[in-house]
């Protein structure tokens, strides 16, 4: 069997990792207890405590008790997570959902951070490349590092690097 080139091995490994992660992310909670736990942390308590319904710590909080009952009934009734969330939103309003739904205008809430992040990464890489191409941006490599045989310019460069590697970094 012909050996794969080294770059190809890396690419295939990366593909396998991405695929494994994608498969993992596509799996949803299956057991009723898991679903209950998961959903109770995606809904707000409506008593005004600004806490998730699964984390509301008010003794005898009637809102929490009611929401928990409805959640249990929804899961037992065979509803999907989406149907349960929609039912809560219809009954209590959109503010009962702990995060904006990923549709319509609210989709923007989810898209904007990653769009900004991606654009910033690409922008930074382009900026670095641009700076690297500016006159003086790319420094010539110094082949010989023996201080005794260095030119004054190389010596100055060595000093600069010593300064940077010796006193820079940290705060």
């Amino acid at each position: 069997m012909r050996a794969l080139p080294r770059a190809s091995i890396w690419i295939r490994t990366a593909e396998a990792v991405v695929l494994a992660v994608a498969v993992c992310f596509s799996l949803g909670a299956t057991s009723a207890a898991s679903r209950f736990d998961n959903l109770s942390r995606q809904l707000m308590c409506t008593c005004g405590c600004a806490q998730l319904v699964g984390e509301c710590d008010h003794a005898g909080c009637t809102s929490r008790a009611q929401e928990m009952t409805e959640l249990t009934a929804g899961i037992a009734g065979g509803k999907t997570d989406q149907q349960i969330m929609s039912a809560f939103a219809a009954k209590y309003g959109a503010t009962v959902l702990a995060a904006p739904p990923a549709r319509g205008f609210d989709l923007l809430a989810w898209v904007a951070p990653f769009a900004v992040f991606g654009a910033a990464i690409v922008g930074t890489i382009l900026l670095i490349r641009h700076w690297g191409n500016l006159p003086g941006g790319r420094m010539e490599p110094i082949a010989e590092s023996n201080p005794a045989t260095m030119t004054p310019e190389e010596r100055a460069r060595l000093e600069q690097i010593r300064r940077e590697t010796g006193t820079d970094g940290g705060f």
Partner: protein
Amino acid sequence: MAAFGSFALLIGLALAAYNLAAGALALRLIATGQPARIAPERLADTARRAGIASFWAVTAAAFALVYSVFTNDFSITYIMEHSNRALPAPYKFAAMWSGQEGSLLLWAWLLAGYGFVLRLTHKSDVKLYAYAGTILAGIQFFFLLLLNFAAPPFSLFSGPTPADGNGLNPLLQYPEMVLHPPMLYLGYVGFSVPFAFALGALMMRYPGEKWIKITRGWTMITWLFLTCGIFLGMHWAYAVLGWGGYWGWDPVENASFMPWLTGTAFLHSVMMQEKKGMMKSWNVWLIFSTFLLTLLGTLLTRAGLVSSVHAFAQSSIGTWFVVFMGIVLAVCVFTYILQRDHLKSDHQIESVVSRESSFLFNNLVLLTACFVILWGTLFPILSEYVQGTKVTVGAPFYNRVAVPIGLFLLFLTGVGPLLPWRSTSMKAVKRNFVLPCIALWAVVIAGPIVGVRPWHDGAFDRGNFYALIAFAVGAAVLTAIFSEFLRGARVISRQTGRNLLSGTWQLTRRNTRRYGGYIVHIGVVLVVMGLSGQAFNRSQEAELGLHTKLNIGPYTLDCIGFTQDSNANYNSEYAMLNVYRNGKYQFQMTPEKRLYLVSGQPQTMVAIHSLPSWDLYVVYEGTNPDTGRPIVKAFLNPLVGWIWFGLAVIVFGTLVALVPGVSSASTAALKAQAERPVAEAVLKGGD
């Protein structure tokens, strides 16, 4: 005392106004060289002295408020609303910042204090300090205007003086609340100083980068205060709110986190300017943004724009803040446009894979994180404006969006220090990254074996998955940092014949900035690992009768009774729980429920037993109104102690970085010897 306090605030306002006007005039005269009746230097000095006097005036006002709290002067509305006779003495101090007016006075006093120190140390650079002092006077003028006209702390109660006050909010009657707000404010207010230096340096076209060296100490101390303030707030939320967590992505928490992120970015990117003359405009805007974010945070939480469980001091001062922020932004933009040619940077950068690039990416990620939090905080307002309906942007949003960005930042924390300046070679990458990569994969493989599994109940669990990634990246970062220490210590050890421990000590002493920074990074990794433990929290709730048992993890909680207590401030009920582990008695926990007499408000006092592996956290929630039986909720929260220990490491690292490095002649030669191999390795394309 109310009249004295009000008068002191008026005097303070007049002095700040003089400081601003005379300082600005003097600097204008100096800049243009126009002749004047009074020498501009003398005028500037009178302005400086007015600033110093303003500090004493605001101190007198702060003293008047504290004195009034301690003497129960309920003729002052603020005292009546935020204190009462039975309030314990430490909380009487806390009353000062528990309401709008008092917290603004604290802000003004701290700002005056920073200004006082700055004006006393003006001889470092008289002109730059004069600019900074005048800008600070402008900020001080705004806060004193607020205190005199919009939110006066000494306004008198209309009607007969009440016999007792309304008391302090029970949520605030906790030891951290005596420390957390002043720490946070020291951080918030402190960023005014680097802001003033940056704006002043830009206005006067300050030559060179000395202003950065001058402000570095200020910025680091401010950053440290803000860090401590945030963590104290987290601990308060953990110990008082009783929901088992410490960070809920609440708007008030977000408001404190945003300037921390930009401040952290500034601390990193100024190094590029200091050493390589790069990112000058970027740095100026970073510190401008940090200052503006401190104001925005105050606006968000005070103006009632967003709802929060932490907003204890809402009022109608939002308009004042909007106007002030508008003025500050206009001044910043105008000055920048006018002086932008002064900020021309050198762009010596060669490779995407280099130390310089890692600084850029670090800044990018910190700012993206800041944007995400600002976006999430403001999105409900935007959504309501566009759609007419408000939405909630809570923890699930941030956990999905901010956590991956945070993990990338953690990754950069480890990668950055391993990258050489200029560019790198494959050989250097292999040498520097082998150990961290081994550590990373070891944790990825060992994690599921020891219980850190990215699934739960047979289904994929996003929280667990992120936790595993955080542990793995954290292990890689720790390995990278320790190998950096080891590499340097070995060189010193070889050169001096000392052992590795002594070599590490010498290494750190010689370059406190770099190695102090690494220690801070270790603290950050510990904090992240502690936060990741949250994914594995467990909780059990039960109605407990006598000798009813509650099992959680390896513990069994046996209820042996309930008792009551009372004092002048509150009545309390305790649950007495004997804790067994594997059938063996360990200790007793007494979670408490208080009822504050004046306000009639209930409050939980959580019982926490901390171990390095986890916290056993027990809340006595009160009695079920239907059954009359007491409800106890127990949590087993893994690794929470790592968060607080991580903070201690961060504080230690920052203090190390603040200490000047040893640069005596005796060590200079040694230093050159030790650094030569490193520098030569860099020239050869190594590390």
